[in-house]
């Protein structure tokens, strides 16, 4: 895999940011990105998708772009060219497919109006299975989720899976999860970075006791900690894309990355909310939107607390503690 050079990367980033800040509808977003020549860009450098998802995070944009990442691995198993969306299992926070093979429970990332089928992953005695459910077969209408994060546009779905229309997932589901986790981590970088930018701008401008809040040591140190956390996520994201990783290592790296993404949002948001004072916890500023978006992103494909505990359990039962990064 070749890489985009720095200059090209920067140009792509600017164009992508511009698309997201324009604030188009989901459909327009997809065409705008397609028109950018996105397909060619990721063909040259697959890791360029990080640019896309980071931009989405910064803009707090809502879209189902993540489906494209996941479906790239699942579509080959499925028949026909129906328009599809993915049902993300969030019933169990470890990203494990639903244990009830008859019903897929989870969320979809956007409206099902322009979609024919929902891709459902289930696990049972036949192992992990991938199936499709026609939108027209849904018994209950999807419910928009607005409890904590109000702007995601995500929907809760219960999808009845017909036994006959499932196929064994094989290697495709772990590969899809790893790719999905890399994309989510990139989006998390964007959300956290923008939250920090807002916090830096606010504390640099706002004055008390005759000087900016950001001239007080505890505020400065708090913001530095948030910066260090975000940088740690950036570098790990880059490492998760390394060519030198085997498939197995890439999956381990994506799990580690997902854990860190959740931890970083916890570190960053606690700090950015704090330094904004009352502005941070009210609707008087946008900070709450970063908090809630980061929180629901953590839930997709494995919440960090659950993943960390499972990883600890795996390590204790003999899974090697691989270095994953080598010089």
């Amino acid at each position: 895999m070749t890489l985009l050079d720095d200059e090209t990367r920067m140009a792509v980033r600017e164009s992508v940011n511009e698309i997201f800040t324009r604030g188009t509808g989901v459909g327009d977003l997809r065409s705008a990105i397609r028109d950018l020549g996105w397909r060619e860009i990721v063909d040259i450098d697959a890791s360029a998708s990080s640019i896309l998802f980071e931009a989405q995070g910064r803009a707090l944009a809502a879209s189902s772009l993540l489906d494209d990442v996941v479906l790239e691995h699942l579509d080959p198993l499925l028949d026909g060219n129906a328009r599809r969306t993915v049902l993300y299992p969030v019933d169990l926070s470890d990203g494990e497919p639903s244990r009830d093979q008859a019903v897929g429970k989870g969320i979809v990332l956007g409206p099902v109006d322009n979609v024919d089928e929902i891709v459902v992953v289930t696990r049972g005695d036949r192992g992990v299975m991938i199936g499709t459910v026609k939108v027209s077969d849904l018994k209950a209408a999807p419910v928009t989720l607005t409890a904590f994060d109000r702007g995601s546009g995500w929907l809760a779905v219960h999808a009845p899976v017909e036994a006959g229309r499932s196929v064994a997932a094989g290697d495709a589901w772990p590969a899809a999860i790893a790719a999905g986790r890399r994309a989510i981590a990139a989006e998390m970088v964007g959300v956290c970075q923008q939250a920090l930018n807002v916090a830096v701008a606010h504390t640099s401008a706002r004055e008390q006791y005759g000087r900016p809040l950001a001239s007080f040591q505890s505020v400065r140190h708090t913001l530095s900690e948030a910066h260090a956390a975000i940088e740690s996520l950036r570098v790990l994201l880059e490492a998760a894309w390394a060519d030198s990783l085997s498939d197995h290592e890439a999956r381990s790296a994506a799990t580690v990355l997902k854990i860190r993404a959740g931890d970083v949002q916890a570190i960053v948001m606690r700090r950015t909310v704090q330094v904004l004072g009352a502005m941070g916890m009210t609707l008087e500023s946008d900070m709450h939107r970063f908090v809630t978006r980061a929180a629901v992103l953590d839930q997709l494909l494995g919440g960090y607390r659950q993943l960390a505990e499972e990883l600890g359990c795996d390590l204790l039962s003999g899974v090697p503690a691989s270095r994953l990064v080598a010089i």
Partner: protein
Amino acid sequence: MPYTNASGRYVRRLPLTHKGKPSLVISSPTDTYPQDLGLFARDLRARLADAAFDPWRHDDLHTAEDRIAHEAALLGRLYDEGWNRYGWPEDAGGLGGTLLHRAAMYDELSEAGLPVPGPCMPLETLAAPMLKFSPDIARKLLPAALRGKQWWGQGFSEPESGSDLASLRCRARIDGDDYVVSGQKLWTSFGATASHYVCLVRTGTQESRHRGLSMIVIDREARGVTVRPVAIASGLNELAEVFFDEVRVPKENLIGEQGQGWAAAMYLLQFERSVYGWQSAGSALRRFRDLRSQMVGRRLPDGALGRLGMLYADIVTLRARNAQTLRRLDHGDPVGPEASVDKVLLARVEIDLHDLARDVLGADFLMSDDDSSRAWREEWWYSRSATVLGGSSEVQRTIIADHVLGLPKESS
């Protein structure tokens, strides 16, 4: 006797060379290690698995002095076989290659369950300014250091100058062909057993702060040098206080020009942040694996599994960051204030690893006499230095605030 290593390279015995002891040197008509980092690492990995290295895989030593002597012997062995000479210039005892060879060696040691020899830490930090500013000094001192016969102490901090290093007072005045040095240094790592001290001394006025500093190498055996070991709370003499009472130091021992001390220190800091960070990260992964083994079959405190998973994730993250910084340094890019992020990440790993060990091992950590518990106790105390030595956590956060985030300055 000669052996053929994993890649079929013939290792031969040279005639008696060093102090009557035979040396083994990797030899082949064309030494491909300098150009082939992957081969170097693979061959080293295979070699370190050999039982010849077993004496260093477990530690039952009870003093810092014994431990560093033992680890210096490991370094000597690595020298005899050629491994640690890669990455150093040939005219200073090296065999060519780059910083990445050294980094690969430290990593393979950790992967093999071996410690990074203590002498390698000051070596990486202090050889750098020598090589850059005064190669003659490097040519003179590096060979013995690579052999593990000598190691150096970094004489920077003083009783009155810790975080505010630019305020240091240890004076050096010119007298004929010498500098005459008076003052003291404190918290010098490896100071109790070091052969030389690389010191920042004041050659200008006190008011000139960092502009009036020079870097100089002082021989421990010079008249007027007194060393007082300083123990970490574990009881180990990991540090020292060094007193200089009108010590004559030849002018040739200056690293760089007079007044260039601060620039030399800033240069050195890049290696401390990156290479020392990498050495520590590899050791942390090794100790993580040790702790993990000890946790199997043990009744664990609440949350231990999650902490173990998080810690592993933090170690991989630290390694990713360190590797990136090292590659930049190897490429010739300056490592600037962003390296404070590396230090913040390292400190968190050191503290979290050792706090997890303490929590998991419970009463054993506090009261058992076995080697393993003793080692964790000693390391727990030493790990408290991660947020203090080499620039405290507070200083790192201030550097990030000032030079990375560009926040408004703290007013005085």
